[in-house]
């Protein structure tokens, strides 16, 4: 079903609410000089919560497209909308008591956070190359500014500079790929592109062009998801950006990047066949993505081994996790896609949690170096135990949520008979355990000579940490709802 412009508006409330929120925050920042520091976070939180509520209420019946085929509304998009809004809320709460952001005026920060969330929601349901490009650029442009938010800080500026140069080049390359695809198929709509590709035989020159399209567009999506070899910006940007922004970048735009990647490749370059998809013959693009996935997790994990800066180590770890998530996307099966969604969902809580502990420790210690984490257990047992749980979850140790993600991903890979791929993943998980354990060792076992002074944690931060800990611990028990929700969410418009 394709809805026209006016009919679509009823399914567009979450985005409209965020848009209204941006305007309100900008206005209140100018108008309410005295109150703005209290009002703006509340306005932002209200907009995000209201948008989340509307998204949960959306009852669209069957999958359909909005605005004359520009956006696709299906369960897959809804999953990502809920995911991205929850990430936005958690990051907003995490940024409130951050010392890094305390020194600068924060009015624009809230408007930018809403804008980037709006862009990501649009990314999750674009079904047209123009929408794909515009939403990706909306997210990119706002996140460049967020990374460089500490204007007088040299690291923040440098990170922002590197981010925008890498981003501009890779989205430019992606755009060139889009233009070639348009030339091949004569259409910008993903479903029309698929039909056009199916109608012609992709051989000879066309095959080379399609391969070029796949490589160039992978550059754009790979940049957003921080996949090797488009990851060079990632460690520097994550280190230089304010930590709440780093936490945000490592989860939300990455997930939106995966949404857009799956949408592009599964709706545009493959056709549904029973329980799975078949890629359009001519170019074996799943193989390209499998290679990217293997490189991503291996390089991410190996590079993380030698890092001594915690933010940098977690940056490499998030590169490695992008590799695991990509494993689910390249299988072209319903179970693979479901595994990817489960992994993303648990990754949200464990990764945000780990970055959040780093934020809290920086608030009083002003350091990201691993050595300075020595003796943390004696100074704040709560913080050390929380960090250990997040890290064990990131490794994938059974009682914690991360295990669920790894279980689904490896299960889906083995279902497809790709044993070597599963073995590579498992070996990587073992390597990863080493550097995560190293952080725990510094926090718990190693003590320095200084007398242990207790670490102050604000009540809000403590509450938020507990909020993030709970899913990590209880998800393994409430596994069935997650299973049902994600199994429901793999319906793509024009797909299964």
């Amino acid at each position, binding site marked *: 079903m394709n809805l026209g412009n006016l009919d679509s508006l009823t399914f567009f409330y979450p985005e409209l609410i965020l848009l209204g929120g941006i305007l309100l925050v900008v206005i209140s920042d100018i108008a309410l000089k005295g109150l703005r520091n209290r009002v703006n976070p509340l306005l932002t939180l209200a907009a995000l919560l209201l948008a989340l509520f509307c998204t949960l209420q959306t009852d669209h019946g069957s999958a359909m497209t909005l605005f004359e085929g520009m956006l696709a509304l299906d369960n897959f998009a809804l999953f990502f909308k809920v995911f991205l809004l929850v990430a936005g809320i958690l990051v907003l709460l995490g940024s409130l008591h951050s010392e890094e952001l305390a020194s600068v005026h924060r009015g624009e920060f809230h408007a930018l956070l809403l804008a980037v969330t709006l862009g990501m929601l649009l990314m999750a349901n674009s079904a047209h*190359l*123009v929408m794909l*490009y*515009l939403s990706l*650029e909306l997210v990119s*442009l706002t996140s*460049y*500014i967020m990374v*460089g938010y500490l*204007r*007088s*800080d*040299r*690291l923040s*500026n*440098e*990170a*922002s*500079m*590197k981010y*925008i*140069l890498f981003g*501009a*080049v890779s989205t*430019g*390359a992606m*755009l*060139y790929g*889009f*233009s*070639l695809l*348009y*030339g091949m198929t*004569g*259409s*910008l709509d993903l479903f029309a592109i698929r039909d056009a590709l199916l109608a012609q035989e992709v051989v000879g020159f066309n095959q080379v062009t399609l391969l070029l399209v796949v490589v160039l567009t992978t550059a754009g999506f790979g940049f957003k998801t921080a996949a090797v070899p488009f990851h060079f910006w990632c*460690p*520097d940007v994550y*280190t*230089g950006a304010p930590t709440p922004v780093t936490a945000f970048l490592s989860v939300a735009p990455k997930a939106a990047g995966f949404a857009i990647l799956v949408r592009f490749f599964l709706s545009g370059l493959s056709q549904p066949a029973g329980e799975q998809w078949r890629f359009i013959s001519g170019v074996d693009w799943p193989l390209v993505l499998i290679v990217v996935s293997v490189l991503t997790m291996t390089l991410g994990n190996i590079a993380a081994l030698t890092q001594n*800066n915690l933010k940098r180590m977690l940056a490499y770890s998030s590169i490695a996790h992008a590799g695991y998530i990509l494993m689910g996307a390249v299988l072209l099966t319903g179970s693979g896609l479901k595994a990817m969604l489960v992994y993303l969902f648990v990754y949200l809580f464990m990764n945000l949690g780990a970055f959040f502990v780093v934020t809290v420790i920086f608030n009083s210690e002003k350091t990201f170096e691993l050595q300075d984490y020595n003796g943390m257990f004696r100074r704040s047992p709560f913080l050390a135990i929380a960090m250990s749980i997040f890290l064990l979850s990131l490794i994938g140790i059974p009682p914690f949520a991360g295990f669920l993600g790894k279980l689904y991903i490896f299960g889906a890979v083995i279902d497809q008979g790709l044993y070597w791929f599963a073995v590579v993943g498992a070996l990587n998980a073992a390597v990863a355990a080493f550097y995560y354990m190293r952080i725990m060792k510094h926090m718990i076992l190693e003590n320095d000579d200084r007398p242990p002074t207790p670490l102050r944690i604000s009540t809000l931060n403590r509450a938020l940490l507990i909020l993030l800990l709970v899913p990590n611990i209880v998800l393994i028990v409430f596994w069935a709802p997650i299973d049902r929700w994600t199994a429901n969410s793999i319906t793509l418009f024009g797909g299964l």
Partner: protein
Amino acid sequence: MIELKYYLLISAALFSLGVFGVLTRRNAVNVLMGVELILNSANLNLVAFSRYSSSGIDGQMFAVFVIVVAAAEVAVALAIVLTLYRVLNTVNLDRADVLKR
């Protein structure tokens, strides 16, 4: 009428020059000029394909959007270059190396 392939050749040349510029220049502003070349090569492709196919003006519409986004992107990029210049007193990218350890 000029054949389609000449447009494609020019756009491929522009794209290559843009990538070359991005990879070799050390001045941030010059890198941004390389990015502009890349975006314009895609625009040229889109408009040429749209002109030579029977699919309406989709491609030209896309090109207009790309021009607008490119303007926004340069605005943000130049603002970042400016703040970097304030901190470092240079726009040479080799000097922005604190994060590389």
